[in-house]
């Protein structure tokens, strides 16, 4: 059903909830990934810097601890560990400077030194360029000496940031990998989430599409809260449709009854009267009357049939139909009618069952109309061959053909034949209408097939075939 549905779907899709949901989830994932990446990078940078600061502070502290006051001046015995500890993690360049009373005691005397306030003897950290590299420096203030005026010694240790940069680059690349991985996983999960979020919708769609055309009961599927209004609306709509369809069917049925019963009365009375009449001119007049009754009855019947077919083809039931049995049964039912003209209906059915998914009533009606036409247009003492076979050259298609030995169509207007109310140009003298073929054509189309009209050979009868997809 879906294939045909798509072809004829009147709804143009605008956007997709799933795509929208997916894109939104993806956007959230992307933002989170990016945030994660930025935060990790920032934290990594800070941690690396803090680590370096700690080591620098430890180094400066160990230098400060080695300061002595001897003989009126500050001396220093630089501990080996003070600088070697800076080389343990990485291969950064190291600079130091010790200043006592504004005079450089030792170290790199061009190393910029922060001026920590004596009141807050906390290590002062700074980052600046020195000797062609960016360095991180700590300056520590330590009073040395006793007495009332201890000497303020400023110890500075600086280190380039190569190792820190390497650490944070490594963490950044890990963060990038995790961020990308997170994004990929989030993408997959988003797809799943979008799909599962919409699964109730898919379930509801399935439960609606699986229904037969006559099934207009309210939907009882348990729906998520968000879909309840929609389900309610759908059920309300189906209720209205049910009423409307019921009214349509009732109307058609009622119309048929109103038209046919008086016609039947009229015809029966006319026939009774006819039998009692003797004079040929009276009989002839009554014959004309009966014929008019027949013609109007048949037209009315076909119009009502067509209306009903149109109503049903909007939503073809897809029950399993044994087409071979249907053909045999319909032909059997038709045999008495055909027999009135000594027309024999010959059925040629394949030995194996022919199964298709479709609407029994519609198919039966289509065949009925085709047979009706064939009987009408066939001469007495002829044969109508109903053949059910595989469609040559098209797998999974069956051909149900009805060939008569009537006058055919004189090869002229085969295309026009199925147009509503059109009639074969040479059958004006026979009650009937092209509506029968129109009905058959619509039924074939509703089943995804088509009607094939041909002539056995010019003047040697018509062949009407329903080509249908088999199951």
């Amino acid at each position, binding site marked *: 059903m879906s294939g045909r549905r798509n072809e004829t779907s009147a709804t143009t899709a605008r956007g997709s909830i799933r795509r929208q949901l997916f894109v939104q989830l993806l956007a959230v994932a992307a933002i989170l990934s990016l945030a994660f990446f930025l935060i990790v990078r920032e934290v990594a940078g800070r941690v690396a810097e803090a680590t370096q600061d700690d080591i620098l502070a430890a180094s400066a502290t160990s230098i400060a601890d080695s300061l002595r006051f001897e003989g009126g001046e500050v001396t220093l015995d630089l501990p080996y560990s003070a600088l070697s500890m800076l080389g343990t993690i990485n291969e950064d360049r190291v600079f130091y400077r010790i200043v006592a009373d504004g005079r450089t005691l030792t170290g790199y005397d061009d190393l910029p030194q922060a001026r920590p306030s004596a009141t807050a003897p906390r290590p002062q950290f700074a980052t600046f360029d020195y000797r062609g590299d960016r360095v991180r420096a700590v300056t520590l203030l330590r009073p040395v000496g006793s007495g009332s005026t201890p000497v303020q010694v400023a110890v500075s240790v600086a280190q380039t940031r190569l190792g820190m940069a390497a650490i944070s680059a490594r963490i950044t690349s890990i963060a990038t990998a995790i961020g990308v991985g997170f994004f990929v996983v989030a993408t997959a999960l988003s797809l799943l989430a979008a799909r599962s979020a919409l699964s109730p919708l898919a379930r509801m769609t399935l439960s609606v599409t699986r229904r037969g055309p006559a099934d207009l009961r309210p939907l009882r599927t348990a729906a998520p809260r968000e879909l309840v209004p929609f389900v309610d609306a759908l059920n309300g709509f189906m209720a209205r449709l049910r009423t409307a369809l019921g009214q349509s069917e009732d109307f058609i049925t009622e119309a048929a009854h109103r038209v046919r019963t008086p016609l039947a009365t009229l015809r029966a009375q006319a026939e009774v009267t006819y039998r009692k009449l003797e004079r040929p001119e009276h009989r002839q007049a009554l014959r004309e009357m009966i014929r008019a009754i027949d013609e109007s009855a048949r037209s009315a019947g076909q119009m009502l049939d067509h209306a009903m077919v149109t109503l049903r083809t909007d939503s073809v039931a897809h029950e399993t139909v044994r087409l071979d049995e249907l053909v045999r049964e319909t032909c059997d039912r038709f045999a008495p009618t055909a027999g009135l003209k000594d027309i024999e209906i010959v059925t040629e059915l394949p030995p194996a069952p022919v199964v298709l998914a479709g609407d029994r009533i519609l198919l039966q*009606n289509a065949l009925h109309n085709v047979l009706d036409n064939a009987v009408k247009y066939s001469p007495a003492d002829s044969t109508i061959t109903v053949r059910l076979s595989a469609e040559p050259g098209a797998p999974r298609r069956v051909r149900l053909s009805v060939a008569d030995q009537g006058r055919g169509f004189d090869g002229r207007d085969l295309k026009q034949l199925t147009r509503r109310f059109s009639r074969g140009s040479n059958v004006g003298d026979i009650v009937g209408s092209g509506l029968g073929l129109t009905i058959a054509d619509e039924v074939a189309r509703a089943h995804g097939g088509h009607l094939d009209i041909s002539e056995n050979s010019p003047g040697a009868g018509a062949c009407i075939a329903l080509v249908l997809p088999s199951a």
Partner: protein
Amino acid sequence: MRFLLIEDNERLASAIAERLRLDGHAVDHATTLSAARECLDAAAFDLILLDIMLPDGDGRQFLAGQRRARNAIPVIVITARSAVSDRVSLLDLGADDYITKPFEFSELEARCRAVLRRRGGSAANQTSFAGVTLDATRGSLNTGRRIETLRNRELRLLEVLFNAPGQVFSKAQLMDRLFSFSEDVSENAIEVYIARLRKRLGGTDARIETVRGLGYRLVGPR
């Protein structure tokens, strides 16, 4: 044959009944389902003609009830409904056949015959004349030496003649029985069928005699 016609439309019912009586059938008429049940209790019928839209109920329910009660009288439903929606369910409910209003009586007759034939026929439908037996239900002719299967029109024509041996039937009368109102055929068309029947009866004592200027009649051995 004895018909029970269940039809609420009086005028239609009387027209149908009269038409059937013209062909020599007995017809009881009921306008409601309850009346129909009374008729069924009172007499035996060969066939029920049932309209499905009745004032005191749905004909389909009556049908289903009959079938549940194992009442085996054949039922032909006369329906005014759209064939599309009704045909299948009527058959499923146990109707033997259906016919859509309005209908040609010859078709009703053919269907009745077909239904009865499917149900196994009845001896009442056999007519014998001059050693030849016509079984209208089976559509066969027993000449004593062989059994011929008749075509539909042959049967109907022969039936007319067998029902009134010796009576002269005009061509027009015979044509009324043979051709539908929609067919425009000349009176000579009847001669074809007369010729066929003479062939079938060849070698028997029964003959179809041409009465010049009047028509045809069935006569016995000279």
